Every structure is written in C-alpha cells, then in structure tokens.
C-alpha cells in the first residue's frame, strides 16, 4: 500500500481511538476516577445503533445521534447513583466497581442480543471511494477522519473558549479551588461524564467497521484506551488527539508489516514513554 493510504488508514483508526478515549481522559483527569468501564459505554453505543437500525428502521446518522443521547443519559444516571459514591474511595474500589460494571454490560449484551459479532450497515454514500486529488480512499474512513478532526476542534474550542470549558479546566487543575470559586463541581462531573460517555458511544458506533463490535469489545480494547489516555495526559484534549493519532498510525503500520509483534512495540513504547514522563506526553507536571 502506498504511504498516503497507510497514513489515512492509521489516521482513521486513530480518530476512532480519539473519539472513544477523549471522554475517558477528561473524566479521569477531572474526577480522578479510574474508569475501566469506559469501553463498555462505547460498546453500548454500537449496540444501540444496531438495534435502532434493525428494529426502529433508523438511518445511520440518526442512529448515531440516538446512541450518543441514550448512552449519555444512561451514563449520567449511573454517575449520579453509583459512581458519585466512590469519588473518595481508593483506586482499588474504583477498579473493582468498574470491572464489575463491565461484566454486567457484557453479560447483559450477551443475554439480550447474543454473543456473535455485529455489523452496522453503512449508508450507501459511505461505501464507495472518494477522490481526494492525490489519492482515492474509502469514503467511510474519510468520514471517520473528518468527524474526529471536527470533534477535536469543537472540543478544543469548547474547552478554551466557553465558560463551561474554563470550569472543567479549573476543576482538573485544582478541584478544591474550583469548588471554593463557586463552581458546582457535582453537576460539572455529571454533565462531563455524560458527554464523555456519549462520545465514547459515537466512537463505538462509528468505529464499529474498524474495531468490530461484539460483547467482548470493552475488555479487548481496554488497554488501548488506557494507553491513549496515559500517553496523552489526563484531561488534555489535544494530548489525547495526538496520542490517539500516534498509536492509531503506529498500530496500523505495524500490523501490516509485523502482523505478530506489532502490538508488542506499542506496549514497549508506552512503557518507556510513561517512565520518562509519568504525566504523559502532553500532560502538565503535577497537574
């Protein structure tokens, strides 16, 4: 495959990682909560689309929107009722709770929908190829890339330019200070968690063509999502974007050239990176 093609393929994979992981980065940075169930929300997004398209006859884009809304609502509810009780608990309790939650999600999907792999039918306009001038490439991948970049831009603007974003940044850097300045941290957490999980749902649905979709999804990609977040830095939208891009492209290239040892290189790279910079490539020290 030519260089442009390899790059675009990796770019698309990276954008899926970004859309899923960015919420995890913000919620972990904001709440200091080790949320191993995040991939579960992505999976639920994918399954919402499958069911909505099959049984309610919704189109791809409408189903994607529904996945965002439905999963965001569910996540907001879970945050209020369960997650919020564990903010002050240790990592261990959080790990345990979220692993439990993943198991429940996996089992619920297996029982309700079945253990087999699902495919999400792409709309016709995404299935062909598009001529970019210098290269022809799958329209679907280009849509994923465009969505990822657009979301990154929107999130970046939202973070830097809106009051809501300013509050989140303040709370990530110093929660107590933000609270004393009158930020309603509890509500901030719920809304951020809901949006972050909703985005994961979008990533799960939109990226199903790339990452696949079956009940084991949350555990299979857990390490990848965590790596993207850890490398990108907690609570850093731009950091997660570049980390996802890096990992996506690397993984894509390595899987073509070294189908067996490619993943090993990514783990080794992460290990070295985190040892040199425990706060991540783009994270701020001590934040």
């Amino acid at each position, binding site marked *: 495959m030519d260089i442009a093609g390899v790059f675009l393929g990796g770019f698309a994979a990276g954008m899926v990682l970004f859309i899923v992981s960015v919420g995890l980065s913000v919620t972990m940075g904001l709440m200091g909560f080790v949320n191993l169930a995040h991939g579960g929300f992505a999976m639920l997004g994918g399954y919402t689309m499958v069911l909505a398209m099959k049984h309610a006859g919704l189109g791809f884009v409408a189903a994607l929107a529904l996945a965002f809304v439905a999963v965001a609502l569910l996540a907001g509810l879970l945050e209020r009722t369960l997650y919020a009780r564990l903010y002050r608990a240790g990592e261990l309790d959080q790990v345990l709770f979220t692993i439990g939650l993943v198991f429940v999600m996996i089992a*619920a999907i297996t029982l309700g929908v079945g253990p087999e792999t699902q495919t999400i039918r792409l709309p016709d306009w995404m299935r062909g190829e598009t001529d970019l001038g210098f290269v022809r490439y799958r329209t679907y991948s280009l849509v994923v890339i465009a969505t990822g970049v657009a979301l990154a831009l929107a999130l970046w603007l939202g973070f830097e330019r809106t009051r809501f974003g300013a509050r989140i940044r303040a709370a990530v850097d110093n929660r107590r200070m933000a609270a004393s300045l009158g930020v309603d941290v509890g509500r901030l957490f719920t809304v951020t968690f809901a949006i972050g999980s909703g985005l994961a749902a979008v990533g799960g649905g939109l990226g199903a063509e790339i990452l696949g979709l079956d009940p084991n999804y949350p555990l299979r990609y857990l390490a990848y999502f965590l790596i993207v977040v850890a490398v990108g830095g907690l609570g850093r939208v731009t950091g997660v974007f570049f980390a996802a891009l890096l990992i996506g492209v690397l993984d894509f290239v390595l899987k073509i050239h070294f189908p*067996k040892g490619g993943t090993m290189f990514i783990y080794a790279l992460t290990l070295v990176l985190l040892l040199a910079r425990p706060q991540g490539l783009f994270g701020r020290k001590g934040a």
Partner: protein
Amino acid sequence: MMRGAAAAAEAFARRHRLRWWEALPWIAALAAFFVFPTYLSFGTQLLVTVLFALSLDLVLGYAGIVTLGHAAFFGAGAYTVGMLAAHAGWNEPLSGLAAAAAVAATIGFLSGLVLLRTHGLTLLMLTLCTMALLEQAANMGAAWTGGFDGIPGLKFQKILGLFEFDVLYFRTQYLYALAVLFACFVLVRTLVYSSFGQSLTGVRENVLRMHAVGAPVRTRLVVAYTISAALAGVAGGLFAQATGFVNLAVLGLDRSAGVMIMLILGGYGRLYGAFVGAVAFLLLEHVLAKAYPTAWQLGVGVLLVLVALYARNGILGLAEPLARRFAARRGGV
C-alpha cells in the same frame, strides 16, 4: 477490658501468635484429599490459585500497590518451568520451582525498580503494559514458547525422587501443591507480622507520613514487590508442573483481574482473604459457570459492584464484627 498503653502493647506483642482457627484451612485441605478423591485436579488448581492470590495480597493488600499485571509473574514462572522442561531437559520439580521463583523475582525486581517510582493511574498502566509485553513476547517467541498453542505434554521427574506425578487423579500434585503453599504461607505470615510488614502497611495507609518518619519507602516497596513476584512465580511453576502444559492464558489480563477479584472478595490485607476468596470464587465458578456462563458473569459483575459499594473489606471483613462479638461474649463470661 484492660486499658492503657501497656495492655495495648501486650496485645501488639501477641498478635502474631497462632490462633486455633488458623489450623482450619489446612485441616480442611487434608480432609478434602480423602473426602473428594476424584476432584483433586480441581483441588490442585484451587491451591495454586490460593498461592497466587496470597502473593498478590502482599503487594496489594499490605503495601497498597494497585497492579493489574500480577499475572506477568505467574506467567514468567509457568513459562520458566515449561521451557526448562521442554528444551533443557530440566524436569526435576523442586529445582524447577526455584528457577521459576528466581526468574519471576528478577523480572519483579527490575520492573519494580523503575515502575514503583510512579503511582495511581500511571502505575496501573505500567503494570498492565509490562504484562502485555511479556504476553506478546511469549506469543512471538514461538520456537521457545510454542506461541499461541503453548507447550503441551510436559513431563516431570518424581518429587524428591520418591513421588510420581499422578496423571489420572492428581493425588501427588495435590499434596505437593499443599506442601508448597504451606511453606510459602509461613513465609508470608512471618513477613506481614514483622516490622517490615508493619512498614508496608504504613506505606499503604499514608505514604507521606512514611517518608516523614524517615522510612526508605521505595526500597521497601521494591523488596515487597520482588518477594511477591517470586511467590507468584512459584504458583505459576506449580501450575505448569501440575497440569503438564503452559499456554498464553497464564499471562493474560483475565488472570490478573481474576486473582485480584478473588482476593478482594475474600478480603485483602488479611492473610486468609486469599484462601476464602479463591475457594469461594472457584467453587461457585465450578458449579455455575459451565452451566450458565453468561449468568455467571452477570452475577460476578453485580457482586463486584456491591462489594465495591458496600463491603469493601470482603467476606472476611463482613465476618469480623461477628467474630469480635463472639470473642467479647466469651471474654465477658
């Protein structure tokens, strides 16, 4: 009730002494040998898992190191025994276990030296990556490790030149695993009641204060991590010897998360939590998982959520207030 510093000191000075109920797990294990002679393969697996959970308790329960990569050491031990037997003809069991412990300890020491500078999410990630790295290495080095298929059909010499491995009923393996578990347990018990163990608890409870009393925190953690790795390596080695095979499953996230779940269900930082957790979990799994695998996973998930929210000290934590009331009543009479 006695009061005052001297009384408290007296209780502190006596807390490491053996209590009568500490004989129960060993009596039960020996009794099971005679009562369930056809289940000893499962029993051996249980004993190996208890040892693995016990090794995790030392770092997670006592030192408070939250790791998702403990299977790295179990796997290192298992592959050491497997590869030595398959390629080097080194199939004497006890020295095999020693080699497993040495390799796992070396990996634990080297990784601990660099990993334990970090904490929280970073540490969690690093332990996960270390394990994934080993898993991928085992997957790639197929000439040595058998790759995805692993190394089947391992054969071992008689234990101490006397007891032949019992391929059919696992009688020898069961008693062998029980003896090894007992020896390792004695070591762990000695450690946790020592000043060293006390200082690990101090690190878990408040690392800032531990620095402020002048304790060499990182050294203590690396030592604990290395010992724990060695014990996990022994568990892995035992697994390979008892079952006669090694494959990638010994190194995975499933095994790491599974042993952590068992330990926490039983009650971490309690020495016997590893026993209670592993036995309860594996027994239930044995009965339920084969018949209703999905319902089993759902049940475990719900259980974990409940434990995290309401019973953070596990089964033993729930039992403690009852035991205390019982002891108080006896003392009062």
